[in-house]
């Protein structure tokens, strides 16, 4: 069936084609609109792109698994902010006084633990109460954000540690630290989805929950693991980001969930669960970052970027629907 096959090819290759189109478009448009003299596809620029993709990218990898599992997590932005606060603030806690730079691993550990705990709360509520993930995380998006504000009111939390900054700004083999973290996360979670029982069961649950339950797969624990994972990844993303920036604003991370979901859906993960790939998400993240960078390059401001991202999400939804309808077989309901 030629149309079936071409549809499939389109679906899996589409995101990389899109990236290509973007590269071409912005390089060309840049000739006319660019504010700087450097070319768009300059090597440094592209390396920077990878680095800047890390915060969203790390979370997106976790979101892929969550969505494949049939859930969603709208609280990632808030978890990101809380983890950032824990990271920076804990470095000046009394118990760590006198440790100098030795406090850094502890700070990292505490941040990740925070992410894991918040993720676990989400997961437990979804598991035990049976309330849908989007409602639970819609609520925790609000609730966790409240915790963020409770920490320091509307003031930023800052703590600049130069060792950390140096580490974050370093480059190993040409790639920034953040990029390495990102790639490592991609590799680990990709391996998780392909080679572990947990990963395969997550796909099964998202694809046909009843069949999975009847086959004896315990849905609750798998969902919990995935929520803890994305919590940890949101925290890791904060660690990567705030190690360098040194200051957390209580409003940070807002709308992160939008970016992440857009990247994941763009990368080919089905909203309804059961299908999606980490590599595809990688493509989605790069595509979004490229868009942001490109628009900035030709002089667009943040508001335009927000506008464009919102619209892209909608277009992607539309394309996803077109490619997934069953044609003549379906009723016109």
């Amino acid at each position, binding site marked *: 069936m030629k149309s079936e096959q071409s549809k499939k090819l389109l679906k899996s290759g589409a995101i990389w084609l899109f990236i290509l189109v973007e590269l071409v478009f912005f390089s060309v448009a840049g000739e006319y609109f660019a504010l700087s003299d450097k070319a768009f596809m300059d090597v440094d620029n592209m390396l920077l792109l990878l680095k800047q993709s890390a915060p969203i990218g790390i979370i997106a990898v976790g979101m892929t698994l969550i969505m494949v599992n049939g859930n*969603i997590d709208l609280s990632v932005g808030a978890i990101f902010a809380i983890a950032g606060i824990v990271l920076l603030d804990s470095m000046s806690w009394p118990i760590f006084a006198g440790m100098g730079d030795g406090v850094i691993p502890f700070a990292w550990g505490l941040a990740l633990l925070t992410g894991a705990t918040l993720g676990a709360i989400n997961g437990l*509520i979804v*598991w*035990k*109460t*049976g*309330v*849908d993930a*989007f*409602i*639970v995380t*819609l*609520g*925790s*998006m*609000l*609730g*966790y*954000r*409240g*915790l*963020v*504000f*409770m920490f320091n*009111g509307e003031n930023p939390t800052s703590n600049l540690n130069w060792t950390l900054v140096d580490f974050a700004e370093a480059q190993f083999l040409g790639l920034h630290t953040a990029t390495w973290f990102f790639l490592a996360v991609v590799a680990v979670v990709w391996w998780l989805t392909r080679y572990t029982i947990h990963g395969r069961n997550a796909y099964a649950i998202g694809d046909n929950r009843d069949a999975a*339950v009847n086959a004896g797969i*315990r*849905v*609750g624990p798998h969902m919990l693991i995935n929520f803890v994972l994305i919590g940890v990844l949101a925290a890791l993303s904060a660690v990567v980001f705030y190690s360098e920036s040194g200051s957390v604003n209580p409003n940070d991370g807002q*709308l992160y*969930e*939008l970016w992440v*979901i*857009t990247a994941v*859906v763009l990368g080919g993960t089905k*909203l309804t669960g059961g299908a999606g790939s980490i590599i595809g998400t990688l493509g989605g993240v790069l595509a979004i970052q490229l868009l942001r960078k490109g628009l900035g390059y030709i002089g667009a*401001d*943040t*508001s*335009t*970027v*927000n*506008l*464009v*991202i*919102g*619209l*892209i*999400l*909608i277009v992607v*939804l*539309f394309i996803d*629907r077109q490619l997934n309808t069953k044609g003549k077989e379906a009723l016109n*309901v």
Partner: protein
Amino acid sequence: MAGFANNEFVKLLGKQGILIAFVLFMVVFTIADTKFISVDNVLSVVRSSAILGVMAIGVTFVVISGNLDLSVGSMMSFSTIVVLDLHDKLGPLMAIPLMFLMTLALGAFIGFLVGYLKLNSLIVTLGMLSAIHGLTLTYSGGKNMDIADKSGTWFSVFGQGDVIGIPVPIILFGLLAALFGILLSKTPFGRKVYAVGGNPTAATFSGVPRARTVFLCYLISAFCVATAGLIQASRSLGSQNTVGQGLELEVLAAVILGGASLLGGSGTVFKTLIGVLMLGFIQNGLLLMGLPFYVQFVITWGIIILAVWLDIAIKRGRFFVSA
């Protein structure tokens, strides 16, 4: 926990549990501080709930029809900014209808995507939240909007005026509640909204124009948002462009508190009204206790989860999932 499918008390708890909890809450707070139920305080709560309440009326329609609207907060920012801007450029008489038209256009776009193209309303309105936010920022050039001559305009009547002692926002809230409440419960259109939310397939099989019904619900929601923006703009005659941020969750909490099911097919404007007031009193109570606004976030979170959980638990007959 054992099953309680046939336990009458629990069923009562499910149906009126939220109301009971609320009454308890009011009693406790009144004991703590009798100012809580003073006429002044009550009036002030109702007045400050007006904006949220107006928006909640529109979202009730969307939720009953089986969908969500997360964009109402940023849409309200948009309406507020636009009407303030146009007020100084075209005068209030032109500004108000034009703003309504622009807001309705946004609502129509969303209604088209969710109703006619059948896209997922959660994701679409999440995307629109960002897009409209961007639109508002672009429109306002990133700056706040203020009316130049604040005392020389009748525009302030919507947010600050009163008629026979009743503040105009409350009147507007009441009028819209009555109008849309009747639309929902007593007209054929209202019946169709319930049908589409209750079983979209059966609704189509019965000749109900599903796409058009969903579309119109989003238009109604946009109309309500525009009204809320009008009240907000007129109240302070100036505004930041993020004024509506986060309201979508509070509105949703109010609608859920009022007993509407997020799955669609049930709920009423009147119940949403109760939910709005409940939320208003809870926030007021917390304020009187000296707790800052972000504590409300945590409380609202708890409310949303508990309310939906209770609703699901009653239907299921068990508190916790068995697996």
